[in-house]
């Protein structure tokens, strides 16, 4: 059972929270760990996944609702022996070649797979965040999923249903990742993290974890965060490390910063279908780049210009001040 005591944060720990990705992965990801990477299509922490590959972590359990390109890459790099997920596909753009080889042919090795639905995963994170022994949900009745996933169980409600009958409901267990990585638009040096656009399950995934690393497009002054406290999705007390890593969500997008690289999503189906080509891609783009800044530079400014977005400011609200 996790507790606040495990956090790095707090008195004296503030300055120490900001660190390079290399240091964050070295400090918070160990062989055999359960690692959550969250971001639903938006703000996928790709750069974190790449650094885990570079550092050669092994035997990881990866928890991710939509296991997509970054998971396929981590699988191909041999980091992952177990996957907990509710969608294993390349978005709507096709297949994950490595994942399919692992599951369909145990090639090059088997992959243990815990299959849930999206809300099942959300409820596992919520239960983890809230230290609940289980979370009920109105899914799975009649599904074959409980027959292949012993984690999905039933509870009898202690309250009668409207018609007086006894009511059963499925439940899922909490998940407590050793570490959760999320990507966000901005945070302050203490880890107060602001996200806009799709917010997914990021806050719950952070609160469910024993340690949490927030990767951001921008590290901003305290005043920027404090001007809009309702925008803070993850408060500092839940964050152990802040990593500044612009464009770290590519090929996914960061609302207001850069658009999704749909061409790469489409290309991945072909790249990943051929294990030699996939490993060549990893050599060139992950092992062959020292860090994400090198990956960004290798893509080139012309490429990034193609993903640039125009401005659409939200307009302010007034928090008021005592006169």
């Amino acid at each position, binding site marked *: 059972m996790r507790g606040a005591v495990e956090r790095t944060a707090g008195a004296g720990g503030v300055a120490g929270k900001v660190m390079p990705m290399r240091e964050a992965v070295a400090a918070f990801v160990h062989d055999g760990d359960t690692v959550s990477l969250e971001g*639903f*299509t*938006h703000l996928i922490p790709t750069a974190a996944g790449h650094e885990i590959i570079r550092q050669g972590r092994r035997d990881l359990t990866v928890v991710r*609702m*939509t296991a997509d390109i970054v998971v396929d890459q981590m699988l191909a790099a041999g980091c992952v022996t177990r996957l907990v*997920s*509710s*969608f*294993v*596909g390349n*978005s*709507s753009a096709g297949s994950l070649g490595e*994942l*399919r080889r692992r*599951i*369909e042919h*145990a090639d090059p090795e088997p992959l243990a797979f815990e*299959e*849930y*639905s*999206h*809300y*099942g995963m*959300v409820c596992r994170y*919520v239960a983890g965040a809230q230290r609940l022994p289980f979370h009920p*949900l*109105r*899914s*799975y*009745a*009649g*599904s*074959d*999923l409980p027959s*292949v996933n012993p984690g999905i169980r039933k509870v009898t409600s202690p309250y009668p*249903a409207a018609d007086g009958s006894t*009511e*059963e*409901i*499925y439940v899922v267990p909490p998940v407590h990742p050793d570490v959760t990585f999320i990507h966000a638009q901005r945070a302050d040096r203490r880890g107060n993290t602001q996200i*806009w*656009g*799709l*917010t*997914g*399950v990021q*806050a*719950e995934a952070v609160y469910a974890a024993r340690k949490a690393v927030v990767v951001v497009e921008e590290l901003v002054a305290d005043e920027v965060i404090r001007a809009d406290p309702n925008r803070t999705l993850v408060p500092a007390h839940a964050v152990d490390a802040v990593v500044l890593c612009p464009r770290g969500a590519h090929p996914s*997008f960061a*609302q207001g910063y850069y*658009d*999704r690289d*749909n061409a790469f999503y489409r290309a991945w189906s072909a790249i990943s279908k051929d294990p030699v080509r996939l490993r060549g891609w990893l050599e060139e783009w992950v092992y062959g780049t020292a860090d994400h800044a090198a990956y960004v530079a290798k893509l080139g400014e012309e490429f990034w210009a193609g993903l640039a*977005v125009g401005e*659409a400011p939200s307009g302010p609200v007034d928090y008021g001040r005592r006169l």
Partner: protein
Amino acid sequence: MSGDPTGSTRPVTSSELLSVVAARELAGRRTVFAGIGLPTLATELARLTVAPGLEVVYESGVCGAHPSHLPETIADAVLITGAEAVVSMATLFGSVLQGGHIDVGFLGAAQIDRWGNLNTSVIGEWESPSVRLPGSGGAVEVMANAREVFVVMRRHTPRSFADVLDFCTTPGPDRALADGIRPLGAGVTRVITELGVLARAGAGDELRLVAVHPGVSVEQVRAATGWELKTADRLATTDPPTSAELRLLRDDVDPNRVYLR
């Protein structure tokens, strides 16, 4: 409307037909949970025709989108900018969907059976499948909680319209009842395919052929279905898309023919 410059006299494609038929089924509905592709076309056309106040909710958490461009994914940035609300997954699945606010959910599947149960997990055995499919996503939740579900299947084959599913990812209300749990929605009520429309009323009822598209015979549909498909007492022939429907679809909804393949 003769001499229409937008080409509404061009032959109707299968995508166009499916979009128009699905759009008509949305008459009077208020909220729809839609994926990208044909459901996008159907809901956008419905908003311009039979369901002007229709709110589209996306699995990504977007409610009331007003996109500047046709979205390429359910999480496309253009769905967020200018939307009426964006909510977390916990709120989307918990309060909006499980809370009972969705009238119609659109789902797809690799396999569907006569009770409207769906398989999106595997072809073959789950433990060592011949094809690993993406899995549920939110499909289990849409089926369990939306008042009814529409399925749009481009291809109508005995393999996809299966007598017995390889795996039931997403159960309809009959399987839920057999599991001792009272379902909240009717499950799949409409299946719209390249050949016609199948329908069922809810728990206890099986899918029946209620309409064939122009030029399609009942025997064609039965041959393409993996179970002994029953036919409604009054079988209809789909009304072809009107020129107004086609013009809206081609000129306003998808002028670049992103999904109108």
